[in-house]
């Protein structure tokens, strides 16, 4: 009925469409357009179904990540606090101390800031910001801030009397460099580098380099944990896949146990087991394998991190492996043997290659989770078992250098994306089988 009504109008309107695609439906609509319309409704329905999740992700995931990335380059503190000084500094060559008019501008900035209500004052945050670049900057600024009202011209002397740092060309270089709304200095710091007197980026002193080696350690630990999970998970998954369902489920529960116990219980268990006076050490000493005075230290160091994280992440390796192995019929191995392959060859050439999608999925999961893992290294990792996330957390919670935390976090995120991209190029992400 409706079709008959709509028929003539549509045929009239669709002259050009028809000439392009040629085919029309029974009521005269061009086939392509009819198809599009039907598809559009389906797509809309699909979109509406996922819309709540999309909105949720947008609010709690995409938006915060965007914020974090923004924070790693956002640099408003100096610009907001001392606009006059920056204006006066324009054109300064950075070799000698600035002239009197710059100090006068600085004084004016301090005075203007003091007028503002306390919560809106900008000089304090600038002190914190400058302190990231030059320790003692914060002290100099806050002390100056307290007494700046009594300053008399010439201001240059007044400032220099107040704090010797004002006579340091380094401080002025930093003010000039960071007097821009965007900065790369968090990334420079995150790569263990700093600006030298010419403003070029150089490596820091040896004893102050931490992040690059921490990134490397995180990477190495993640690789080691992934590999250990594979070594331990593969046989278990294989065994489960050939066991009758009843026993396989029982074993699965054992594998999943780490998921079901609280993190603190698990960690306590590891401490009980691994510490110097713990179960394992005591047993080894009792058996006479090691002496009482050289008990192994297996916790609060890298060993602790590796052991505990392997335990926790094992299910992420076993589950995809198991689901892939379950679908490999035993007839493949039989066929290989009947064709003359020894059991080892049959396993290597026929069985193992078919588990690769599961290994890939498990390894990607374990690796990506462990590279950003935070709580376990914090609890049992001690100093040498720390990972980059612990450093990020420290900057967020203790040193409150959110910019540096954001830069480190962004580098971690980009690193993971690059690795995933490489995996995709080399192996193909569409071959992954997560479950």
């Amino acid at each position: 009925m409706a079709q008959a009504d709509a028929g003539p109008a549509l045929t009239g309107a669709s002259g050009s469409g028809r000439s392009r695609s040629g085919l029309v439906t029974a009521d005269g609509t061009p086939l392509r357009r009819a198809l599009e319309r039907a598809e559009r409704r389906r797509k809309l329905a699909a979109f509406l179904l996922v819309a709540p999740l999309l909105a949720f992700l947008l609010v709690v995931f995409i938006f915060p990540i965007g914020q974090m990335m923004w924070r790693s380059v956002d640099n408003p503190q100096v610009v907001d606090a001392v606009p006059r000084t920056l204006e006066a500094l324009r054109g300064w060559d950075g070799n000698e101390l600035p002239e009197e008019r710059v100090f006068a501008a600085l004084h004016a900035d301090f005075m203007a800031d003091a007028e503002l209500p306390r919560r809106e004052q900008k000089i304090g945050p600038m002190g914190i910001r400058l302190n990231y670049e030059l320790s003692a900057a914060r002290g100099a600024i806050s002390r100056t801030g307290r007494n700046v009202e009594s300053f008399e011209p010439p201001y240059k002397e007044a400032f220099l009397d107040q704090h010797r740092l004002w006579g340091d060309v380094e401080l002025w270089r930093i003010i000039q460099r960071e007097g821009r709304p965007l900065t790369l200095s968090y990334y420079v710091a995150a790569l263990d580098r700093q600006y030298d007197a010419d403003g070029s980026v150089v490596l820091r002193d040896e004893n102050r380099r931490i992040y690059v080696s921490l990134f490397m350690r995180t990477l190495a630990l993640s690789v080691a944990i992934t590999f250990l999970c594979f070594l331990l998970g593969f046989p278990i998954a294989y065994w489960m896949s050939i066991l009758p369902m009843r026993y396989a489920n029982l074993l699965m529960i054992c594998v999943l146990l780490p998921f079901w116990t609280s993190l603190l219980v698990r960690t306590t268990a590891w401490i009980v087991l691994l510490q110097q006076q713990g179960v394992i050490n005591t047993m080894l000493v009792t058996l006479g394998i090691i002496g009482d005075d050289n008990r192994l230290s297996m916790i609060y160091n890298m060993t602790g991190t590796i052991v505990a994280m392997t335990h926790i992440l094992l299910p992420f390796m076993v589950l995809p492996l198991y689901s892939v192995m379950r679908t490999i019929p035993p007839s493949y191995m039989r066929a290989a043997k009947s064709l003359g392959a020894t059991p080892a060859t049959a396993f290597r050439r026929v069985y193992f290659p078919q588990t690769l999608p599961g290994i890939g999925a498990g390894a990607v999961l374990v690796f990506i989770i462990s590279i950003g893992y935070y709580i376990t290294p914090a609890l049992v990792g001690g100093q040498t078992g720390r990972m980059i996330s612990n450093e990020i957390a420290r900057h967020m919670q203790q040193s409150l250098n959110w910019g540096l935390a954001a830069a480190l976090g962004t580098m971690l995120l980009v690193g993971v994306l690059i690795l995933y991209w490489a995996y995709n190029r080399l192996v193909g992400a569409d071959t992954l089988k997560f479950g």
Partner: protein
Amino acid sequence: MFDTRDDAAFVRFDRVQKSYDGSTLVVKDLNLDIARGEFLTMLGPSGSGKTTCLMMLAGFETATSGDILLGDRPINNIPPHKRGIGMVFQNYALFPHMTVGENLSFPLEVRGMGKSDREAKVKRALDMVQMGSFAGRRPAQLSGGQQQRIALARALVFEPEVVLMDEPLGALDKNLRERMQYEIKHIHESLGVTVVYVTHDQTEALTMSDKVAVFDDGKIQQLAAPDTLYERPENAFVAAFIGENNTLRGRVTAIEGDICTVRIGGDMQVRALRVNVDGEGAETTLSLRPERVQIDAGEDRFDNIFTGKVQELIYLGDHIRVRVSVAGNDEFIVKVPNATGERKIKVGEELRLGWTAADCRALDPS
């Protein structure tokens, strides 16, 4: 042992028994000789132990007792990969991560054959199954029938002396199955390889095999050539399992030489060939093929003449199945060829049915 005779058993099952659970025997006392170059089919209903026998021969299951010999050598303790027996699996088991060519060259590779030899053999095997241009494809890119051919080629490429096939055509449609039956038979004849074939399709068994072993209940019920199996079944199971069959149950009243008289139902006396009867007074099952029953039979030519009432006619093109009620048995089937000059039969009509004693076999009670 020295055995130079050509027809000597090449594969031999010697009092083989198999139990999976320790309480029931899945294979009971199996004795079977297979000659070199023979095409032997194991036929039987589901669960009768065919696959189990094949798996024991291939080495994937161990016989609980008894010996399996291959060319006079007991192979019970030889692992599967050293037996040199080719196998075609029901689901083909082509390795999905290898191309067709790699699948075929796999058995040659594990035998350490050189590259050029391998390539020549793979090509020859592919040509044999008319799949020469498919070497670069993955198994997933092939149709069921093509996969079947590749599986066959792979089982043959390393020139085994015995090839086992477990319902290799089970997944194919009827037309393709018939074509593949012909091709497998053809390859068997041209290569002279010994084939042990498992199926539960009796047509397949009858058309392809030199010999058929009918399995039931873990035992071989009869081992014979297809025509013997059809025409001279030795027991009631084989008679009922192979082809269409009229079954009449009764008691033997008299025996004269090869011929016995059997009373069926109330007063009906049938003269039948004595095949598997204990003696007078014993229960027996008579087996009579529907196509051996003549309608409008003349007295002189037949040992048995009865009248029956037509219950149903089923038109099948080349012949008509007539269901007749004879002596209280409603399921008696007669096949009437659809030839020129045959008269029209109507439902409700009384028919005179006749058959010879030789066509009616008195078998064991069932």
